[in-house]
């Protein structure tokens, strides 16, 4: 119990504390103001709670009933828990992020926000961070799984921590994709559906058997083959797998960071183009 606390919750709290300190003392005031406003509206709207609760229920049900975490008798979480989480995130992250910009378009408040004396990236990053906090909180709230594992056996908590980090970074990638899509449309439903499809494609692109299957079917008529190639080269899955197994690769971290940065930059471009 104590060991779990030290090895899982302490790092989580440290990350949270660093985030809060950065936000309060380093981030520009405009970014902080926007981030806090967005967090407040998550706090007062049902969507964040619904997402968190559904995530916790599903992840636990799958882990203990279908994943057979208890029968496996091994004290590790990758096989029964982490490998499924991106699948939920494909739906949950778009549900958390769909309102980020589409709501601004729908209410017309984007006209207010963009005529404030702030740089656009303050708004884009501030909103993204607020949604990230929801995903982070969701993952932290699944700590009972870790406690259970520690109670039942003697897992490597460092690997578990790496698993959570992989899930968090994957969630943030999906969130960044959603940010782009929600900047395109004023309808939250459209943003949700399109983002889910894109996140799914981004995930499946890393599924080698699927790519190979498509390759064997490839005739001269398969025009979307380049798209498949592209998706498999930028898929989150291989990076997730490396990280979730406890291999902290520099390349994987760089991949996640640059993927998120690229999506946020694209969000800025979309907002700019929508105005003109």
């Amino acid at each position, binding site marked *: 119990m104590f060991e779990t606390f030290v090895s899982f919750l302490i790092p989580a709290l440290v990350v949270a504390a660093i985030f809060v300190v950065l936000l309060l003392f380093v981030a520009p005031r405009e970014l902080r103001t926007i981030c806090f406003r967005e967090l407040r509206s998550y706090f007062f709207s049902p969507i964040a709670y619904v997402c968190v609760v559904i995530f916790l229920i599903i992840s636990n049900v799958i882990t203990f009933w279908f994943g057979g975490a208890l029968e496996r008798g091994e004290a590790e979480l990758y096989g029964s828990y982490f490998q499924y989480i991106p699948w939920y995130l494909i739906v949950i992250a778009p549900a958390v992020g769909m309102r980020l910009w589409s709501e601004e378009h729908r209410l017309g408040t984007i006209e207010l926000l963009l005529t*404030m004396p702030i740089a656009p990236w303050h708004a884009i990053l501030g909103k993204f961070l607020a949604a990230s906090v929801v995903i982070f909180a969701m993952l932290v709230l699944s700590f009972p799984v870790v406690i259970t594992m520690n109670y039942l056996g003697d897992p490597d908590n460092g690997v578990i921590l790496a698993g959570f980090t992989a899930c968090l970074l994957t969630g943030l990638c999906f969130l960044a994709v959603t940010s782009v899509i929600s900047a395109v449309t004023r309808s939250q439903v459209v943003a949700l559906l399109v983002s889910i499809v894109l996140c799914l494609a981004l995930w499946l692109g890393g599924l080698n058997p699927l790519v190979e299957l498509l390759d064997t079917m490839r005739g001269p008529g398969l025009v979307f083959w380049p798209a498949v190639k592209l998706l498999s080269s930028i898929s989150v899955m291989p990076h997730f797998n490396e990280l979730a197994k406890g291999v902290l690769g520099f390349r994987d971290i760089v991949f996640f960071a640059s993927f998120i940065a690229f999506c946020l930059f694209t969000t800025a471009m979309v907002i700019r183009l929508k105005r003109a």
Partner: protein
Amino acid sequence: MIDVVNICKKFGNKVAVDNLSFSVAKGEVLGFLGPNGAGKSTTMRMVTGYLPPTSGTASIGGADIVENEIAAKSKMGYLPENAPLYTEMTVRDFLRFSAELRGVPKSQVAGAVDKAVETCFLERVYNQSIDTLSKGYRHRTCLAQSIIHDPEVLILDEPTDGLDPNQKHEVRQLIKRMGKEKAIIFSTHILEEVEASCTRAIIIDRGRVIADGTPDSLKARARHAGTVLCRLSGLAGSGIRHELEKIAGVEQVEVVEESDKGLSAHVFAAKARRADLSGAIFGLAKEKNLVLHELHTEDGRLDDLFREITKRDVES
């Protein structure tokens, strides 16, 4: 303070704003008039930096709105059309949020919010959630947001839309008062508002300026400006009309209402004879023993001018 030079906006092939130029100095209140779809909101969106102009430039206090975006935006307050608001926030939180984003120093945020709440009469709904507010209160909340940092330049798109007559009056007074030390542009469809608070008015139609001047000079261009409206009885209407037409200098008698007991009409006269026209009508009444119910010289009405110049454009 506000300088707009040859600004144009095209949406696809459609020209919404066509080569518009104007400037507004400190102490001036510019009324922006025009029929629906004339391009008023589009112009304001370009001046506030929300829409990039297709060509031309706009600058606020010397800072170009495209090149020097943040400096320009921090000098101005903007009330967009339809007063958009974050509906899940309370009035208080929303105003604090706006004050912070608009760069009010931390220690002065509370004071700025209180002042804006007082100016826009929002005390009653201070802690209410915005989605439960009535339309007028929403509009006032958005107005409060635009003046919260006491900007040098104010751009208000239909600031009195949806307000009750008392509030309309208050807002006009507010604009007039603030106009003494700020540069203000506001658009409206209510022409009395222009007379009540503007130092200058521009009428635009299909993206082009079609009239520009002080409210008085614009009124003087209305067709009825300088005519005399009179209502007389004691003779059949047609007889009175005949007498009126015989007065020296009268060019036209435009009947408003005519019966066998009398008439009311606008009397047009040559410019040189206008000064003594009402005297002549009074003399006519005395001489023919008519009863004079009403007699006054028209200043002209902005409504009339507006209708004349924008209708002519539709026909052509």
